[in-house]
């Protein structure tokens, strides 16, 4: 086993943030080295230095076989370092294949493109990932999950010696994750060194050989994955013990129905979806990638038009035609795609938190009360542990997980009766996750109706009072929450391709 990468004494500062303090890290060929830490610990920053995106302020980076560290993405590529960035960085107007081979298009003479070769080679990579996707498909039309898979394919196409995966599975479902791990195992066998970042703790046990933990920009420890209990890793990350007890499911049989959906339809995507949710209830939505959960939520929220069906809020039919109508009716929706649909990246943390509840801070003459906004923002920064130098930092400069917390804060502040959370904990660290679970439970306890869509089955099972399962745009069943429902039962419904009578 050769040592592919050796980093030591790494320093990095941003205005107002000391992001990396004397960090060390190394990587052997044929290993999966997990990099763990809370949101904002500095994981992505460290990896961006290794991949030539950022220049370091101090320390040394040794890459096997090269005298100098990479000073540009191109140089890193030439050294065999590939990276899947945490934030998707794709060209939405191009096709999947064009994205995968950007910068290395198969060419003929005079700069002519060999589009056939491009598509065949991409198809091969997709096949090796067991990914069923047309290389000619437009990237912008794909769901986040599928975009993530394209990013992975792109990184694989470089045939790197060192592959950095920064939260590759944040948007993925169990099935795709399993496929990805299969790919990782093959790469390992070929001697590729893999750096793996994730907040899904169970994955560490499944694939990591070693684990490095970071906290507050500093290196804490590097451990053997097999021999270290998860609890220990979590404690090193968070600096305290994290307890997360599944709650008791309240009896909401007597509660009023908050939202009822009847026969929702939209094009070929959504067929006849009906369900209802009571005040104080948490309804989880499970399903495979593309099952249509996001689409159902967007239709209810008025973000996409519906072709048919009825929406009743507190028993009253409600003609929701825009998010504005929905919020007016007391429905909030947290999107799964924070970058495109959740945040104004070049606005401040404060402005983003207030975005959905501007009325709270506006006088009759339209003047904003900045002091009140600041107070509120500071409150959430503290409550959710948002790591930011101040509430006036641009959201785009926060770490991924901290951005997610800002979106959550935005909807908590809006205080809707019915809240739909689509992948609420995407990219959020273990410690903060349990804090968010607690918040959702509190909201339900206050009588709000909560819908949680999540690709993490354990999350759905942990939170839900009832679990709705979708497959190919149909609601295939609703299961009770709690310990009695098994993963197998959910998966059975999630793959039931015929519409089944909905047992409620």
């Amino acid at each position, binding site marked *: 086993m050769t040592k592919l990468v050796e980093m030591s004494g790494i320093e990095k500062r941003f205005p107002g943030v000391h992001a990396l303090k004397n960090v060390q890290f190394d990587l052997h060929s044929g290993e999966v080295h997990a990099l763990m830490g809370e949101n904002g610990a500095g994981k992505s920053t460290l990896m961006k230095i290794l991949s030539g995106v950022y220049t370091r302020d101090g320390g040394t980076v040794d890459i096997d076989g090269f005298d100098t560290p990479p000073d540009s993405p191109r140089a890193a590529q030439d050294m065999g370092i590939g990276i899947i960035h945490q934030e998707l960085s794709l060209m939405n107007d191009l096709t999947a294949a064009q994205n995968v081979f950007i910068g290395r298009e198969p060419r003929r003479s005079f700069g002519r493109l060999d589009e056939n070769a491009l598509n065949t080679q991409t198809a091969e990579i997709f096949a090796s990932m067991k990914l069923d996707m047309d290389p000619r498909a437009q990237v912008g039309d794909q769901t986040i999950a599928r975009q993530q898979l394209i990013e992975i394919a792109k990184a694989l196409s470089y045939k790197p010696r060192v592959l950095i995966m920064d939260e590759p599975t944040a948007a993925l479902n169990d099935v795709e994750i399993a496929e990805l791990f299969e790919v990782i195992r093959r790469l390992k066998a070929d001697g590729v060194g893999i750096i793996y970042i994730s907040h899904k703790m169970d994955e560490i046990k499944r694939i990591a050989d070693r684990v490095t933990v970071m906290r507050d920009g500093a290196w804490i420890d590097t451990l053997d994955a097999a021999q270290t209990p998860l609890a220990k890793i979590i404690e090193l990350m968070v600096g305290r013990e994290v307890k997360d007890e599944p709650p008791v499911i309240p009896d909401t049989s007597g509660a009023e129905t908050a939202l009822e959906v009847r026969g929702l339809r939209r094009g070929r995507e959504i067929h006849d979806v009906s369900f209802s949710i009571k005040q104080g209830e948490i309804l989880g939505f499970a399903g495979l990638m593309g099952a249509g959960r996001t689409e159902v939520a967007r239709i209810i929220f008025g973000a996409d038009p519906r072709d048919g069906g009825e929406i009743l809020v507190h028993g009253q039919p409600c003609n929701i035609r825009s*998010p504005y109508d929905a919020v007016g009716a007391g429905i909030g929706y947290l999107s799964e795609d924070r970058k495109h649909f959740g945040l104004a990246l070049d606005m401040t943390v404060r402005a983003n938190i207030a975005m959905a509840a501007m009325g709270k801070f506006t006088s009759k003459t339209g003047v904003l009360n900045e002091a009140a906004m600041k107070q509120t923002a500071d409150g959430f920064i503290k409550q959710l542990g948002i790591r930011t130098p101040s509430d006036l930092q641009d959201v785009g400069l926060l770490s991924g997980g901290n951005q997610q917390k800002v979106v959550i804060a935005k909807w908590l502040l809006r205080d809707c009766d019915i809240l739909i959370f689509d992948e609420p904990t995407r990219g959020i660290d273990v410690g903060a996750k349990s804090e968010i679970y607690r918040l959702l439970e509190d909201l339900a306890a206050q009588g709000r109706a909560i819908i949680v869509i999540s690709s993490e089955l354990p999350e759905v099972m942990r939170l839900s009072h009832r679990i709705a399962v979708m497959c190919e745009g149909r609601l295939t069943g609703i299961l009770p929450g709690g310990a009695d429902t098994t993963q197998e039962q959910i998966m059975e419904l999630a793959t039931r391709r015929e519409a089944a009578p909905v047992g409620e």
Partner: protein
Amino acid sequence: MTSVTTQPAPSRASKILGALMHQRLLAFASLIVLLIVFSLASPNFMQTSNMIAILQATSVNGVLAIAATLVIITGGIDLSVGTMMTFCAVMAGVVLTKAGLPLPLGVVAAIGAGAFCGLCSGTFVAKLKIPPFIATLGMMLILKGLSLVISGTRPIYFNDTPGFDLISRGSLIGEVLPFLPIPNGVLILFIVAGAASYILSRTVLGRYCFALGSNEEAVRLSGVNTDRWKIAIYALSGAIVGIGGLLIASRLNSAQPALGLGYELEAIAAVVIGGTSLSGGRGTIIGTLIGALIMAVLTNGLRVLSVAQEWQTVVTGAIIILAVYADMMRRRKAN
């Protein structure tokens, strides 16, 4: 990308001033350099009368540029400011001269006409989803034609409306401080700038200006009625163009129906030189003012120096590029 310059400091006046000093002083740099160079080159440049001439030359373009700034911050563009200005002037002419109504109604007519035109552009953009470039290009042509139609292709003179020319040419400040005969047109420019700045930094409307430019879809999905706000912003911008129409009509003591084409580029140039991003989400009124001043100083200075016309153009082009380059450097350093 710096964050600081883009979002106006939100707290007390002193803080704002401090921030301005800190961030904008350097942006002034190009302006100051120009002023110094021209002063050294010509003894006639740094006279009070010429400084006032420069300010007055800034007034119309400055007001149009402020109007354009609002729309540009939302991520839009407004190509119609020039001909809309003319249209508003013609409407004032119709009300005052053709209908013979009193002066305040003429003012209302110009501003109202602007607001209405803005409302139309805004509706095209927000409701019909027509790209702002096309919606306002269409408006530009429509208003150009309508100005000619309504005026009968001839200027409307305001000779019968005593006091109309004072809107721009009189000097309220000069009456109080005789040594500072700043024309009302300039005063109005600064009042409009102050008001627009306040709206941008302190009100919901301003907040949504930035938010729409930053990520419209995210704002819509926050339950904000983005269409309505966008239309409101275009209408406000139109009303400001109406003020521009009054200023030019008052200065020429007539509504010239054929004027206006080309003014849009100059206004947008001032906005962009002032650091507002054409992709939306960032911008300041003070920057726009500085941008407009840079253009006016440049034009005036080269004319005072009697540089040959063709070289004036070359030098203006080069200095615009240089000024923006210097500003980019400054900002990159600031990070």
